[in-house]
């Protein structure tokens, strides 16, 4: 929304960044590729949330639930019946994996829609708190619906494949430019593709008609309604959108982790996603991406370098370990960013005095205005 300073430089920058990301698998080892895949999954999820919380002003702590719907939806729909761990018997229709993935995203959207009667009726805070309930109810189902979810130990994730080519697995062998393209390399590209697409689509929505309507709805619902924005439909729409993004993110997380377990999809995850979008600046797609990279990447990277840095206690010893440090860091980040962004915030209506000369009415526009725009 800022003035396009120099489009050429911006495009060049974007292209360079993309090229760099495309080349990464040639330089990075398994660990980094995996971190990257998780980060990109989180970016997608966070973008979905920032549109809901930031643009539409609907506080949601239910994001973990929608992530779970995507992840488990895929695990179940693509899963074959068989024995699970801890004596559970898994069921599953064993759909082709691409079909299962698409259906799982649709399922997440449907879950968002199903929640929207609640979402449409509640505003801001009530919704935020009610959505908390969804996380707990969701986890309860994950633990108990054993044939579908595998219960406490979860379910394994089938590799995603198109026409026999595994997009996230090792089959068939593939070597490009002397580098074997195994599961992790392929996953990197899959996740990158999804993240870029999610970024572009969300950017268009936020800049376009739906985004403008959502933002006004957030700041002043009555004004938005008076401008012709059907509030309930838009609230529901934002929920469905965010749930579908969470669905995609959930599938990617599942594919990267290779197993889904209910423990992962708890309140902490919801709060982490909220932290991502707050740190990035509510409503900002780019900010959400940065926030997601920070919140998801930092703990993984810190534990990698933790020993080398030597600031944190080594695992099993006294002091602040890396995981605790990260939690403190993002708690502090939420506080700091909320205070910071509100401080510099918008100037208050009354504080600014007006003494600019009135702008003359340009007579030329009279005739043009008479053409009714309807």
């Amino acid at each position, binding site marked *: 929304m800022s003035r396009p300073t120099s489009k050429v430089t911006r495009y060049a920058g974007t292209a360079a960044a993309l090229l760099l990301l495309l080349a990464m698998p040639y330089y990075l080892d398994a*660990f980094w590729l995996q971190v990257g895949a*998780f980060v990109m999954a989180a970016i997608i999820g966070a973008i979905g949330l920032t549109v809901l919380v930031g643009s539409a002003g609907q506080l949601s702590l239910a994001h973990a639930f929608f992530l779970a719907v995507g992840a488990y939806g895929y695990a179940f729909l693509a899963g074959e019946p068989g024995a699970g761990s801890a004596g559970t018997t898994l069921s599953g229709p064993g759909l082709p994996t691409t079909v299962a993935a698409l259906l799982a995203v649709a399922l997440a959207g449907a879950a968002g829609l199903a929640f929207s009667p609640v979402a449409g009726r509640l505003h801001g805070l009530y919704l935020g708190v009610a959505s908390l309930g969804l996380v707990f109810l969701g986890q309860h189902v994950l633990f*108990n619906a054993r044939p579908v979810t595998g*219960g*406490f130990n979860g379910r394994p994730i089938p590799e995603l494949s198109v026409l026999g080519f595994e997009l996230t697995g090792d089959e068939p062998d593939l070597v490009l430019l002397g580098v074997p393209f195994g599961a992790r390399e392929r996953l990197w590209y899959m996740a990158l593709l999804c993240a870029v697409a999610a970024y572009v689509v969300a950017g268009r929505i936020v800049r376009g008609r739906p985004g403008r309507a959502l933002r006004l709805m957030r700041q002043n619902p009555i004004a938005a309604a008076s401008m012709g924005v059907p509030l309930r439909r838009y609230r529901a729409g934002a929920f469905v959108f965010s749930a579908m993004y969470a669905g995609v993110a959930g599938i990617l997380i599942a594919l*990267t982790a290779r197993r*889904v377990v209910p423990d992962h999809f708890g309140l902490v995850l919801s709060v982490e996603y909220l932290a991502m979008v707050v740190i990035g600046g509510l409503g900002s797609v780019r900010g959400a991406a940065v926030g997601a990279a920070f919140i998801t990447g930092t703990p993984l990277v810190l534990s990698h370098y933790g020993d080398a840095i030597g600031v944190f206690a080594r695992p*099993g010893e006294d002091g602040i370990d*890396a*995981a605790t440090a990260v939690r403190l860091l993002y708690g502090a980040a939420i506080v700091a960013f909320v205070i910071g962004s509100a401080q510099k915030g918008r100037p208050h209506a009354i504080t600014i005095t007006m003494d600019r000369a009135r702008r003359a009415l340009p007579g030329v526009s009279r005739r043009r205005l008479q053409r009714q725009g309807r």
Partner: protein
Amino acid sequence: MKTGPGVTAKTIRLGAMSDLSGAVFGPLGRTQVQGNQLYIDKINKAGGICGRRLELVVKDHGYDVQKATVAFSELEPQVLGITHLLGSPITAALEPEITTKKLLTVPSSFASSLLKSEYLAVLGTTYDIDMINGLAHLVSKGKLAKGDTVSHIYFEGEYGTNALKGSTWAAGRLGLTLRGVQIKATDADLTAQVTRLKSDGAKAILLSASARQTASVAGVTRSIGLDVPIVTQTPGFDPALLDTPVRAALEKNLTVLTSYAPYGADAPGPKEVAALFKAKHPNEPPNALVDYGYVSAQVIGEALKQACTDKDLTREGLGTAYRKLKSLDTGGLMAPMDFTVRGAPASTQTFISRVDGSAEGGLVAETGLYRAQITPEYKVG
């Protein structure tokens, strides 16, 4: 000498993956890693194995599968074996890779379902066998009789369901009626559930949960006047409970079933571990999980010694060597273990202990190692 990942001319690297920061399992993981390190320190002091020093690389996964998969892909290429892997969902998530990478791993779990897996070394008895021994023990002491009702409060997940399998089988054989009550790891207040047991007329409570539930059950049974034996397993006891108001109830009614000896028990192994622990962590409260951590590393260590004799310090070599350990003596830290039979538990003897607040680590032997008469009839798996 053939060598594999993690092995250099001077060192052998082993890994440990634990929850060191999580609220529920963090404390358990920490103690076991300390136990691992005690063994490794001792071996290194004595000159290492195969002329190589042992090194332990520790990774924290915070009981989160996402972090665990990342940590594993980082850890796996640099180690020969894993002395400690905590968390049943995490073990389930990593098991396929552990198998394909042939990485000998000691899971911090006694679930009999893990016995199927070639490269998971489940030590001692399994949860189900512990429960069989425990229930039979109560009957032999006359605390339970045919026809009595017994309640089993258990965690959802591998640990609980495996234990329930054992208790159900034993109850059938011993003519008891068993009622299962499933709970979550986060359920701290079991008032409602225990009140329910009372009206069911339960004569004993089996508890396959963690220490906080043990505390709640002990407290509630006392508060509602239900004076029955409570039997819990490895994760269900923590000496920290002895500083709380339920201490008296625990001392009166609690029996603890473990695969490993109580801390500082009267045998050379536990005595040695206690001495090492005191020397290294003088200010920390002791806990029998140190023993278990120590044995976990010891089993890998013994397998390494065997592999060294076989001149094969590769992962396959370690896997083969481990299957040669027939009657592994741990100086009384655990019952003698036999890893040569695939799919069978390494032992069927359980340590049965009672609570004594004055003892270090809070447990004293009630019977020492115990195997019920009916136990050999039970089929694992």
